[in-house]
């Protein structure tokens, strides 16, 4: 009896230790960056995990930088636009793929997947030339377009998997109740697929927010340069100084919106939303 209880306790302890190890492994770099961002310039190489003295000097420097506030605004705008422009058509496409039978339906899904597998490095060069010719170079649209193209397949796949879980009777009931196909999607399917919509939105937003390749190749000024690129272009207060502290501070700042977004959306990502729809 006691032997079994203690064995169980030991097992729980082991589980807890394993979880702790995984969390530490995942969060250690983040914690290190937070620590760096709070250190004084002279302490950067002191090898300590906790700063000797906490200073917000690095954050002040980041926001006083010419580039950074503009880059933050660009990142916000471009990632948000890409998210909306990708998820809304993806919802229409996924609904059609799941509910209508039309020739080439499988081909469409396979094609979408093929596009998602395209290596971005292969298209960034041609895009550079094309965008310059079209006047899209160094504009928001110039970044939104590739982000949408690359994330649309992912969003379609996520959403069609989600729409499939919604009973078809609900569509049919809405149609008989007098809804057009669009109204059916708007009032019945989309609200029920909200968790799927939020999942897709987060995926697209994070892709656009984190992208470095397109952002560095297709922008040149404050007009459209996003945060990841702006951080790379950081210069210290003198040319002999590496702006490690400022980079760390900027990294922390750009992580916050993503964490905020996920936390915000997590409330909506609750399962079992269709409970009570069809079973008696």
């Amino acid at each position, binding site marked *: 009896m006691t032997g079994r209880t203690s064995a169980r306790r030991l097992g729980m302890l082991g589980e807890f230790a394993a979880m702790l190890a995984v969390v530490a492994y995942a969060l250690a770099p983040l914690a290190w960056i937070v620590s760096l961002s709070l250190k004084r310039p002279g302490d950067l190489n002191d090898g300590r995990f906790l700063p000797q003295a906490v200073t917000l000097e690095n954050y002040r420097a980041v926001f006083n930088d010419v580039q950074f506030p503009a880059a933050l605004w660009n990142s916000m705008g471009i990632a948000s636009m890409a998210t909306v422009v990708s998820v809304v058509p993806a919802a229409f496409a996924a609904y059609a793929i799941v509910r209508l039978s039309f020739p080439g339906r499988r081909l469409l899904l396979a094609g979408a997947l093929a596009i998602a597998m395209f290596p971005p490095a292969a298209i960034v060069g041609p895009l550079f030339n094309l965008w310059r010719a079209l006047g899209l170079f160094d504009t928001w649209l110039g970044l939104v377009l590739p982000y949408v193209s690359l994330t649309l397949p992912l969003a379609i796949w996520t959403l069609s998997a989600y729409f499939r879980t919604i009973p078809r009777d609900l569509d049919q*009931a809405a*149609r*008989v*109740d*007098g809804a057009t196909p669009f109204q059916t999607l708007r009032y019945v399917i989309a609200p029920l697929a909200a968790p799927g919509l939020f999942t897709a939105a987060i995926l697209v937003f994070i892709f656009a927010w984190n992208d470095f390749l397109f952002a560095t190749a297709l922008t040149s000024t404050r007009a459209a340069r996003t945060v990841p690129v702006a951080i790379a272009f950081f210069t210290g207060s003198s040319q002999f100084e590496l702006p490690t502290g400022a980079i760390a501070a900027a990294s922390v700042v750009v992580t916050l919106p993503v964490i905020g977004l996920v936390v915000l959306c997590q409330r909506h990502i609750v399962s079992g939303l269709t409970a*009570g729809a*069809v079973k*008696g």
Partner: protein
Amino acid sequence: MATIELENVSKGFRGGTPVLDDITLTIEEGEFFILVGPSGCGKSTLLNAIVGLEQLSAGEIRVDGQRVDHLDPKDRDMAMVFQSYALYPHMTVRENIAFPLRLAGLPKAEIASRVAAAAEMLELAAILDQKPARLSGGQRQRVAMGRALVRKPKAFLLDEPLSNLDARLRVQTRSELARLQQRLGATMIYVTHDQTEAMTLGHRVAILNGGRIQQVGAPRELYRNPSNLFVAGFLGSPGMNLIPARIDGAGLVLPIGTIDWKSLPPGFAGRKQAVLVGIRPEHFHRARTDESPPHALRVEARAEWVEWLGAETFVQLGPQVFDLPAGPGGVGELAAGQSSTVTSAAPIVARFDGTEQVAVGSPVRLWVDAEDIYLFDANSGITLSPSPSQRT
């Protein structure tokens, strides 16, 4: 409310047998019309075709003389109650019921008063602000009804609306539904596989099998005068007993006895053919003395099994009593092509009053009035005409 006409309606999927095969029907205004048949007979497909969720391969559907088969479901002005109820889980009961009215663009005050009226009629007032997930099966069923009738549509289509309820609630809801239909004077088309629902609810019943209409008529008409073996076997529980027999010089010769010519209806004289004899369980009478009608089939049998249900007693007489042929041309082969409700091994069942006492294994003497004997063609299953008598 409206009259619904179907003319030569067919539906087939590519490279398969037709799901609906040349169906012509008229459903009168204010009629409670039942589509009944075994699973896979096409009854739900027919309902979906009427409401517009399925396209026809051929034929016409008219509502009050206007063709509707090319219209979108939203333009047909019919309401449907789904077997699963299909309530919108993210909306409250009130929003569910109001949804069709909201789509129709009715003013808010009108919507509120109509929802209130429907809620009162279906006793939903107390749960108007709850979500479907918290409701019981019976409540969900009533919400689905409310969502259908709040629109005052031309017709109500119900797809097995009671099949998800438990037995007691089903009987109660069944009579509520009948009263509701009467009060509204609504045209209702009701799909079910349950013959009890069909018989108790329907003004008229259409029996479907294999995508074809077998017979249309009032429940009494279908039960008393089935047009073929399938209809005869489908209605009634337990089903009609089927015994192979032949007509020849001596009269109707059954494995269990012979009925002479004088007892048979006119028209059979001189014929020689193989037939199936159908006898409903309630038409077996127990012979206490030697008294029985002049034209009767008298049988001596052994009670193989007895089921006493209080009000009635079912006695299985066992197939061997009648020495049924198991080979080709027997009941089994015909039944397999006709129906799943008739099987070759089915024992002969007699239904007695509950007060009758029959011991298992004891001999039973029975008689059947010749008037109550049905004859079917052994090959086609069609009721032989002239039928034994036009029963009423």
